[in-house]
């Protein structure tokens, strides 16, 4: 398949796959192919990048542009990839970075460097490849171990949330620093149930909740009750009242709440929360922009 990279038919097939333009049988054949053959997979990855770049630069033909927007960009991960490509090719950003990008690529020895035989250059390339491979391996390993570990932690927190809800949740202002009942090794958990509305109705009684932190490190477990649940996943932004972002967690899905509605749980180490006022915003990314779904407020009073 590698030699087929330059084959226009294969290229066209991969592009059409990414744009959702293949028949079911063509699609399934190609999927089986890239699962089994690494060359096909690498070609697909490269063509996906080309497709994103062409879109960013406005170079896709009209029909493909529409397919790209209507089909390809439905996935949140792909929307993030598009954002990244925009940064990557943002001329203004490059100027800001003040990197001498206009200087020629220099694997050719510079005038003040001793000229080395070609064999050494090749060794340098091989070394670079080895180092890059090792670095990628470390990053990928770390990412996926983290991912796996976080998923387990989320499930653990959901279990703790259910237990906490039955006792002290729903009483804003009450300190409830109790050790996690599920695991003695966990830090104490301060549950905090929040209802939306602070920005729309700052006078309402449940618009502002206040908690006291204990002296020892703990986890503030926020249960963010949703008024509506129109999206499949959300991003949660915790910021100070002045706008400084403390924590951002992406791709959270809502869960059934104890009140029969839906809620999102956010766990924040208490040492990130100094005394002061905070706002939590739940946002959802759509194809066109980011929409604020709900906002909450609380204060750390001690």
């Amino acid at each position: 398949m590698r030699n087929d990279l330059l084959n226009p038919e294969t290229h066209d097939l991969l592009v059409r796959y990414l744009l959702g333009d293949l028949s079911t049988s063509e699609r399934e054949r190609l999927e089986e192919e890239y699962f089994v053959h690494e060359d096909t997979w690498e070609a697909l990855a490269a063509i996906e990048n080309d497709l994103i770049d062409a879109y960013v630069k406005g170079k896709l033909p009209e029909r493909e542009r529409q397919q790209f927007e209507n089909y390809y960009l439905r996935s949140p991960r792909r929307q993030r990839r598009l954002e990244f490509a925009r940064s990557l090719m943002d001329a203004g950003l490059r100027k800001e970075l003040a990197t001498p990008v206009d200087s020629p690529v220099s694997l050719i020895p510079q005038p003040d460097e001793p000229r080395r035989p070609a064999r050494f250059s090749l060794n340098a390339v091989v070394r670079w490849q080895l180092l890059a491979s090792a670095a990628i391996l470390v990053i990928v390993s770390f990412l996926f171990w983290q991912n796996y570990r976080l998923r387990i932690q989320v499930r653990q927190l959901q279990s703790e949330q259910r237990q906490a809800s039955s006792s002290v949740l729903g009483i804003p202002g009450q300190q409830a620093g109790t050790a996690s009942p599920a695991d003695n090794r966990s830090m104490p958990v301060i549950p905090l149930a929040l209802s939306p509305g602070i920005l729309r109705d700052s006078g309402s009684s449940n618009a502002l909740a206040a908690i006291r932190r204990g002296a020892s490190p703990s986890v503030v477990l926020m249960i963010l009750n949703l008024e509506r649940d129109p999206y499949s996943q959300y991003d949660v932004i915790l910021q100070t009242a002045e706008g400084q972002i403390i924590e951002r967690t992406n791709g959270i899905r809502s869960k059934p709440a104890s009140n029969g509605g839906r809620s999102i749980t956010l766990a924040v180490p208490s040492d990130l929360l100094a005394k002061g006022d905070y706002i939590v915003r739940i946002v959802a990314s759509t194809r066109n922009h980011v929409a604020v779904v709900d906002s909450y407020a609380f204060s750390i009073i001690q």
Partner: protein
Amino acid sequence: MGQKLRGKQDDFLRLLARLSPERERAWQEYARLRQKLVMFFEPHLEAEELAEDVLDRIAQKEDTYPISNVTEFAFGVARNLRKETYRRDQAKVSVADDEDLPAGKSKSENTLIDAIDTEKKRRCFSLCLEHLNPEQRRWIFEYFPADDWQLDERRHQLAQKLNLSGGALRTRMTRLREKLENCCGRCVGGQRKNGTRPGLDQ
């Protein structure tokens, strides 16, 4: 709970062992398989969760369950799960886009969030670039230029300078881009107040 956690870890280690007896190689295989699964389920909104689901299902198979080729097996599981998901989705009301949300959500809030996001992304992009060495930065900027002026010719020259074929250069730049992209994603999604800097080599 502790037992459940240990069970999960055991499942995961069993999956890694199935992928390769050599741990590092197993991690690479796992990462690659996950990428393929996400691509397989996309553009479904829950593609990443569905990919995790497939990996969980395979991980839970006992040692005695014969799997001669994990990737091919994963493809079969994924195909079945996609059918299940289509059936499930057909029974659901379609997800609302923000046009369907009640009017009146303040535009200023959206603008604020957009501005925060944009600024953060720029900062993260800059930080992650710093983690590349100067040559890698030049390669990135040269291969993915802001303009398209003589793009093919410039890429051809870059390949020559690196003593690589066009295909090999493309593969290398795809990986370098992925590395940078992963760093930015991690930074934007998880940067904390305590000033920890995102890195390519964490």
